[in-house]
């Protein structure tokens, strides 16, 4: 056998191949498995700050109250404002504070799920931190991912953030009642979204009146 001994001070290459995002993916798969075992369907709701995530989730909860047993995980940096608003609509809510992190990750969701009695619920709505960039990188284990954009964010939200739509199943274009005032054409936003990912289901909504919320539930296959 040939043995090569390193001389003192020699430089070595150490192979690591350590994928930082793999750990999150594995945890997400674990979350999914746990949810499946308890028959819980989970939706991850993403969107920028002020796009209307909490309001639309509140509307979804109102529609489903009595039909589904709902819990929500509300991701926020430090406050419980969103959690309180969703709770007021009749879902049991666990607040997940990320501190300074710009997204929820599978580990935080795992901790959140551990606080829930999964046998008591069949629908879990996860409200991600308001951000159109980072959450896309961190699957949480949800069955469906929805991105909410609103016309008040301007006409270029899809073109500027195409990657968040990579893993999305449903897109809600919110605040459509402001389209004219904002001179933003929802049809253009829809076209852009479908250009990025043709299989997306796009729904136009007005979070305040609840218009389009049935369309969201249908697109997410929630009865």
């Amino acid at each position, binding site marked *: 056998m040939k043995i090569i001994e*390193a001389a*003192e*001070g*020699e*430089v*070595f*290459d*150490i*192979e*690591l*191949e*350590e*994928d*930082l*995002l793999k750990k999150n993916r594995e945890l997400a798969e674990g979350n999914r498995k746990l949810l499946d075992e308890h028959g819980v369907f989970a939706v991850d709701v993403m969107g920028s700050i002020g796009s209307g995530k909490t309001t639309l989730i509140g509307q979804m909860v109102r529609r489903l109250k009595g039909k589904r047993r709902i819990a929500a995980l509300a991701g926020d940096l430090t406050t419980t404002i969103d959690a309180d608003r969703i709770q007021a609509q009749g879902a049991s809510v666990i607040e997940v504070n990320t501190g300074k*992190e*710009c*997204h929820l990750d599978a580990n935080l969701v795992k901790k959140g799920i551990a606080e829930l009695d999964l046998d008591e619920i069949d629908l879990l709505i996860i409200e991600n931190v308001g*951000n159109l*960039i*980072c959450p*896309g*990188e961190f699957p949480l284990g949800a069955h469906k991912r929805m991105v909410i954009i609103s016309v008040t964010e301007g006409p*270029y939200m899809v*073109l*500027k953030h*195409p*990657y968040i*739509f*990579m893993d999305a199943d449903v897109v809600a274009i919110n605040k459509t009642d402001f389209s004219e005032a904002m001179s933003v054409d929802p049809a253009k936003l829809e076209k852009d979204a479908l*250009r*990025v*990912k*043709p*299989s997306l289901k796009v729904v136009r909504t007005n979070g305040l009146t609840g218009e389009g919320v049935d369309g969201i539930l249908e697109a997410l296959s929630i009865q």
Partner: protein
Amino acid sequence: MHELSTSQAIARIVLDKAKEQRAAKVLRVEVEIGRLSFLSPDQVAFWVKTSLEGTLAEDAEVHIERVEPQISCRACGYRGTLEIEDDPLYHILLPSFCCPECRSSEIEIEKGRECVVKRIGIQQE
């Protein structure tokens, strides 16, 4: 936006491995970042350098290699790159997450989303 926490994780991996290998110094850190990941390579390089300050890896060169996207299509079997449109109107690269051959959305992203600490070059004690 999560470059700092990612970079701190990279630094931790590098330093753990260096300690395990009884390194006197880390001279090089090689990281692969996929083009479809949400990480900015320049920022990661900067924050990794910063996170390694005051450690045995503080003089390490940080190399970031970009990994091009690769997809496979479940519908037609296509395997290759994604269609990325260079739209001069917006000065952006707009990816299309569907098969460039048959337009099916039933695609799997095989490469391009990773963030891998590939290898480190060390000098032993």
